[in-house]
């Protein structure tokens, strides 16, 4: 391990390194909405005493706050997953015109391979579309260093800077040399309506400044050490950035490389120089042919990966294959049962989707753990598009069903955090347009899927401080929904009653199913369930709940299997006992 004796080295994920970089760069305000693979950036930032780090209701608010802070004179950062930038894009495209007073860096964490995402969009396109610079680190050390450079660049060029990671950079760990934080000296906000008030007359002038800035950034891209030529054999030259560079280095250790740390604007002169020094020029990049098409547009002969490799992640072997190396890799075994992620034992969502399936409802779903209810055995969800979409989707479905004479009930379901993120405006839409849609807010008192982060309706900040709790019921009533019911999703009878009534009602309804996420209740003693063997008829109804603590074993009546509760996993929610029609499952006495 190479280590300067004065510098401490730590094993950090890319996300932790970004937070460290922000700290060393003197960031004072950071805002984010949780989203894999970006979540840990803000979580880590809360550990630095002199940084105000906050969860915002959604990514657009986070960016607006960060921009405001940068305008006010302190360095600021906003972090989000790739699809979060779609939400924040409206702000991005115009703050690209205004610039700010102090540095502003926006982190976008892309998810090639969709480990925990609904699409695999390539956010490099945003840098080009918004005409702002983009930096792409290739390991944790660069993640930290590039954040510091991004702030310098932001202030020198008066532009927001996008820092793009991908899952393997965000969640990959490698050693990082720690540095000292820069002494912070806030700048003063000066009123300048022509720069910050984007009425058309002002914006036209700013667009000129943006185009001029882009030209200066292009010159920087040609000279910055972030873009560098590493000459090896002249037979093969590879252009790559981010994690793709690492795969390519591994696959072709002897080749020459143009390593791109700044992927927008591209260093055109440097690319021309590199192309002239190698016999064959290849681009290795994940997802879209972003670099390849721009290099080809420079009139340079360049090869890229086959179109099939626009999908998913690369690795060293796939890169070798793209470069034409023959290989016949071992195939995975074909006959194995899959192991999809599942709702936890005791998950408060399970019962809701059990009932919705029983009611044969068409369910507009949303982003969160509860999306797992689409998988067997629940199979209770019909759509999942993006944050907050369930509400508007359900409204639209209901209107179409009215036209088509389709009698099936429609329900929109979304989590508490998701509702606050972007479910409120469409709820207003239902009321405003005289709809009658039923919306279920799955209120588990946290942002569960990303690792249990607080949000406005939990009453705690990112640092765990008490704050004014957003009252979800009052919020819905303020939107004009008069019929708001709160039920315990562990009480299936009450739940079914509330849902039936809401679906039948000739007005908009919200049913809030309120019960803390089971992962927040670890250590809570609840009596586990037990199967009364002589009563179990082996019907398997309890298994349709999809609880991982329930299974079947041979030995039931008439050659049927018998239900078994795995005691150590059981959370004691009692849902299976309520579902069983033969009183064959009971909760033990504590």
């Amino acid at each position, binding site marked *: *391990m190479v280590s300067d004796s004065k510098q401490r080295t730590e*094993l950090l994920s890319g996300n932790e390194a970004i937070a460290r970089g922000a700290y060393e760069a003197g960031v004072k305000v950071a805002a984010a909405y949780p989203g*894999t*693979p970006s*979540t*840990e950036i803000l979580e880590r930032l809360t550990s630095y005493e002199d940084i105000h780090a906050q969860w915002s209701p959604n990514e657009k608010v986070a960016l607006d706050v960060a921009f405001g802070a940068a305008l006010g004179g302190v360095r600021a950062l906003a972090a989000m997953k790739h699809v979060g930038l779609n939400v924040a894009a409206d702000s991005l495209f115009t703050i690209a015109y205004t610039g700010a007073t102090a540095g502003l860096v926006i982190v976008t964490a892309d998810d090639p391979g969709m*480990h*925990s995402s609904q699409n695999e969009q390539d956010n490099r396109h945003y840098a080009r579309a918004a005409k702002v610079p983009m930096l792409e680190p290739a*390991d944790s050390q660069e993640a930290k260093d590039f954040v510091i450079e991004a702030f310098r660049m932001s202030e020198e060029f008066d532009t927001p800077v996008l820092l793009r990671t991908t*899952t*393997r950079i965000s*969640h*990959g*760990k*490698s*050693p990082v040399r720690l540095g000292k934080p820069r002494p912070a000296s806030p700048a003063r906000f000066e009123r300048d309506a022509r720069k910050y008030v984007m009425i058309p007359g002002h914006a036209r002038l700013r667009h000129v400044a943006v185009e001029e800035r882009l030209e200066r950034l292009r010159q920087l891209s040609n000279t910055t050490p972030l873009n560098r030529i590493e000459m090896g054999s002249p037979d093969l030259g590879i252009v790559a950035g981010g*994690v793709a560079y*690492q*795969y390519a*280095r*591994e696959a072709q*250790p002897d080749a020459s490389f143009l390593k791109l740390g700044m992927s927008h604007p591209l260093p055109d002169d440097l690319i021309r120089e590199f192309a002239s020094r190698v016999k064959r020029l290849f681009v290795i990049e994940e997802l879209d042919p972003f670099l390849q098409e721009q290099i080809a547009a420079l009139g340079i002969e360049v090869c890229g990966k086959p179109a099939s490799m626009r999908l998913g*992640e690369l*690795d*060293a*072997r*796939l890169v070798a294959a793209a470069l034409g190396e023959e290989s016949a*890799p*071992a*195939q*995975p*075994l074909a*006959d*194995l*049962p*899959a*192991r*999809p*992620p*599942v*709702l*936890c034992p005791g998950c408060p969502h399970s019962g809701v989707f059990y009932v919705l399936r029983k009611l044969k409802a068409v369910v507009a779903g949303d982003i969160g*753990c509860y999306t*797992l209810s689409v*998988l*067997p*055995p629940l199979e209770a969800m019909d759509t999942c598009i993006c944050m907050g979409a369930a509400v508007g989707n359900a409204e639209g479905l209901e209107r179409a069903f009215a036209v088509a004479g389709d009698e099936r009930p429609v329900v929109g379901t979304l989590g508490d955090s998701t509702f606050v993120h972007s479910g409120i405006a469409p709820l207003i839409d239902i009321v405003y347009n005289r709809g009658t849609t039923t919306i279920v807010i799955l209120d588990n008192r946290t942002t569960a*899927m*990303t*690792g249990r982060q607080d949000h406005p309706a939990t009453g705690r900040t990112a640092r765990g401080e008490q704050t004014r709790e957003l009252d979800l019921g009052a919020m819905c009533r303020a939107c004009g929904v008069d019929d708001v019911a709160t039920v315990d999703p562990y009480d299936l009878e009450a739940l079914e009653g509330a849902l039936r009534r809401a679906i039948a009602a000739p007005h908009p309804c919200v049913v809030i199913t309120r019960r803390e996420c089971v992962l927040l209740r670890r250590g809570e003693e609840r009596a586990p369930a037990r199967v009364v063997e002589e009563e179990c008829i082996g019907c*398997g109804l309890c*298994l*349709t709940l*999809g609880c*991982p603590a*329930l*299974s*079947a074993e041979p030995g039931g009546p008439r050659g049927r299997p018998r239900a078994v509760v795995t005691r*150590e996993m059981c959370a004691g929610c009692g849902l299976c006992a309520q579902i069983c029609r033969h009183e064959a499952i009971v909760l033990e006495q504590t």
Partner: protein
Amino acid sequence: MIRPMNVMLVGVGGQGIILASEVLCHALLGAGWQVKKSEVHGMAQRGGSVRTDVRFGTEVHAPLISVGAADILVAFEQLEALRYVHFLRPQGLVLLSTERITPVTVLTGPYPYPADVPARLDNLGVQAQVINAPELAARAGNPRTAGIALVGALSKHLPVPAPKWGKAITGLVPERYREVNLDAFRRGRRVGAPALAT
């Protein structure tokens, strides 16, 4: 450049793979190696199949292990050993826990849980060492230390001086769980075979 060594840890979300891989990485760093680790957070962690890649050497670039390139596959669960065995290189080693966790597709569907996983690995020509990690953990006094017992077995196969492991565990585990984890590690290390020639 010496080829990096590749260790893949696989199992089920919630089995403690993240802590085990942290211990592994810190021990390797303590021994002076360059290290890269890659894992996935978020949706996959909800009881799904999970994988963590650890690569170390004098120089490491790619964070992911390619198919057919893992030197050691540490399987925290038996079915998951079969799911990732194609990542193993020829003459690679599987450290196989006896733990079996039935996936929901077996509970509610027609798929059987594979019978006799060690025999199946043997038929594939794969060298596997079976470790009764749940029992080692129970003897240490906490069933949740099974992963650290596996790290103990793994430690016998890696170029890391013995004291670095204890130091890594001490640095990463909260004090009240420290002794039980150190005990589980030692029990695993005792049953781990000596290093293979590579």
